[in-house]
């Protein structure tokens, strides 16, 4: 993370492109929180890359006045890892949707956790696929078919009679993967979200922030009201370094704790290991001649 003494205001991170999001989309709140967090961390815009996949939320890089990488669906973390590995001095912020990150991109998360690069990953979790117009996502909480067979066929397009599977718990799985910073935010509490994002950006290692960011167009159930009623701040006495306790907190069924749920500050990072390796050869750098010599007949 490259912070500098020059101060940037949240406005400085705003690009000219007008967001294409629907009126009332939670992503607006997340975007504003991100501007603020970037400002709090003093990120130099030209040294920052916002990386995304495909989805409503993945359009975000266009709205930020930094470099951006808007790749293909689900491959946000590989691209972010490549950028960070190639240029460790850059600030890399990965963003995307719950579908992008937890469904098609699900296989990359545990491995990014293993590598622990210094990347912040912000998931705009609207419990649905917004861009493709309202199918279930891995975090959708449509009732099961056998429980509530009267789900509105118009609202839940691929699950008109209810779901046939349960939702995942993205916080619990992140703790199991030992993601070194795990937090939850809510777009309707943008200041708190900005604080959380600033902490995530400042964290040395892979930080996952799952922010509820309701989709009023396609998800009328998990909407802002629902989350206002079902979230609470992480208890003051919670020790985020206790992995088992963090797991327990993540499993609570009385609502969703907002705040920093787990962190491990001393986790090794692929980037540091690679730097270590490169340093090993500083006094004996490779040359083509030396390489040839190894294969001399």
């Amino acid at each position, binding site marked *: 993370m490259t912070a500098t003494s020059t101060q940037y205001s949240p406005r400085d991170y705003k*690009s000219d*492109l007008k967001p294409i999001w629907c009126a009332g989309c939670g992503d607006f709140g997340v975007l504003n929180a991100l501007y603020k967090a970037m400002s709090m961390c003093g990120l130099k*815009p*030209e*040294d*920052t*890359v916002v*990386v995304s996949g495909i989805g409503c939320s993945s359009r975000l*890089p*266009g709205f930020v*006045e*930094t*470099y*951006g*990488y*808007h*790749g*293909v669906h689900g*491959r946000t*973390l*590989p*691209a*972010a*890892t*490549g*950028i*960070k*590995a*190639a*240029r460790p*001095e*850059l600030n890399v912020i990965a963003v995307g949707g719950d579908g992008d990150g937890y469904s098609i991109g699900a*296989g*990359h998360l*545990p*491995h990014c956790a293993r*590598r622990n690069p210094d990347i912040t990953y912000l998931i705009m979790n609207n419990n649905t696929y917004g861009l493709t117009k309202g199918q279930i996502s891995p975090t959708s909480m449509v009732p099961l078919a056998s429980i509530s067979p009267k789900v509105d066929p118009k609202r839940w397009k691929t699950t008109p009679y209810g779901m046939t599977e349960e939702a995942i718990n993205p916080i619990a799985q992140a703790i199991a993967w030992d993601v070194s910073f795990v937090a939850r935010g809510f777009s309707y509490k943008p200041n708190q979200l900005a604080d959380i994002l600033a902490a995530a950006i400042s964290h040395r290692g892979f930080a996952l922030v799952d922010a509820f960011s309701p989709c009023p167009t396609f998800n009328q159930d998990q909407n802002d009201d629902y989350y206002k009623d079902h979230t609470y701040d992480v208890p003051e006495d919670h020790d985020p370094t206790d992995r088992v306790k963090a797991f327990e907190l993540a499993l609570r069924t009385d609502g969703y704790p907002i705040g920093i749920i787990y962190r491990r500050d001393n986790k090794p990072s*692929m980037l540091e290991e*690679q730097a270590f*390796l*490169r340093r*090993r*050869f500083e006094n*004996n*750098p*490779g040359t*083509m*001649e030396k*390489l*040839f010599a190894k*294969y*001399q*007949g």
Partner: protein
Amino acid sequence: MTPQTATSTRVTDVVIRLVGESGEGTVTLGDIAVQMLTMMGLDIYVFQTFPAEIKGGTVMYQIRTRSGTILSHGDACDILVALNDEGFDLFGGGMREDGILLYNSDVFTPTPQPGRTEYALPITTLARAEKDAVRHDVEPEILKRLPAPVNTVGLGALLRLVNAPLEPAEQYLRDTFGRKGEAVVRMNISALHSGAKHVAEQIGNKRTPQVFPREREEKVLIVNGNQMLCMGAIAAGMRFYAGYPITPASEIMEFLAKELPAFGGDVVQAEDEISALGMCLGAGFAGKKALTASSGPGISLMVEQINLAGQAEIPVVIADIQRGGASTGMPTKTSQGDLNLAVYGVHNESPRVVLAASSVEDCFWTTIEAFNLAEAYQCPVILLSDQALATRKSTIPPPDLSKVEVVNRLLPTEEELGDSYMRYRDTETGVSPMSLPGMRGGRYVSTGIEHDETGDPGYTPELAMQMKRKRFRKMETLLRERGDAMVRVWGDPGEVEVGIIAFGSTEGVIREATERARAEGYKVGHLHLRMLSPLPVDPINAFAARCKRILVPELNFTGQLAGWLRVHTDIRFTPFHKDEGIPFIPNEIYQQITHLAGK
């Protein structure tokens, strides 16, 4: 110094085939023999087939040796060293009728064949005796894991058979086993002589070929295609590799994991090929030259993001070490079956370059070319190699580094940066100056969505066509700027009876076949494609214009190059394709030439 008998014939070219159980050290024996022959100043060319089994299974290790360049692994083998009967059954058919068979008589006895010269060698017995002889002189800890020197007995026999001196081998054994103590060295040297002696006793007046040491002025490398590909990548400035293991590409990642850190580069073993290419695209966007390598199944998984690279104009190199068969197919066999996937593997259309390496040495140069083209035209470059080329061990001169030219992408000037900077500026060449993160005033979003010159999304019919034309214009520019350099032409100038158009790892075997045909008076030409896409149509047509008949040989089932040529040219030719998992031998091509010439 060279032992010699009355009946030995001086030969300039010997093909030795070793077959045995892969666990038995057949490959080790081959590798040592290769070293010994190279030390004698000879050149070598190795063709191996690997079993499907992890350990065990039958391997074939074929060494062709002569003094001077070797273009293929040859036709039938002159000497077959059969360490077990399974190997003999599977690979004995590749032997010439008057060839020499050296077999492990402890294990089996082949039915004699008229014309064939046979040497029975009780390798196991001899080796065991050698171990017994030193049993009390070796430290117990070492003795416990000390194998009987089977390979060394075989080596002695083989060297004697070709009348090679034993001294270099002795020195080699001293170097290799020195740290295990004097007794182990002694055992091995004695085993070497035991093998040699056993053969010498049987020679009598049997025919033996004789290879002659020569003074080599220049240095040589003993390397395979994968290794030279890696060295080319490093020479081109590649400093980021991400990959996922797959036969026969894994060696590339393994090589680079060892060597790249010393050059300040990084290697990441990704969780799959999708992630590997994703990381490379991230690195390429960020300004590093990035490489990933895989084989068919992995390349298939990369299709979506190769397209992203084409559309978002991100330089990246993807090496496809083709293997045998569709789907999982035959992972340890060879094929040229991925040409279609390389040139057509994209939904809708975005530009890409497809190159093919053609020899171990060429792996170096074509890999450099791949990075240069990726940088110059800001696009993905697929570099085709194959299992046979990747594992083909040859002696080659060390590449002349002064000839290495490195191209870097076009960066925006200070004036171009700023508010009016356009990442995807629609230029005459199609190439737009590419800013890198960290450059002030160079901000843009790299995207696979259709976009305008700034990179902002846009979908109007006019924009869609304009930007597509811009991207494909780069390929026209490439052809104009370097198209003629993308073929290599061999053989007779002027009008020829038979011209051959081919690509990839078949270059050597075709050259050998054409030279054989030319030596017999046929007028033969050969155009070898270095670049498949965009196809350098002009030099192809120029070549075709002087050919009476054209042959298009390739190692796949449906004739993919043939189809590709039909799309882009009007030339008429005879396709010749098969896909058995093994390379062509010169004779197959030669037969086609003479057959076509006779038409």
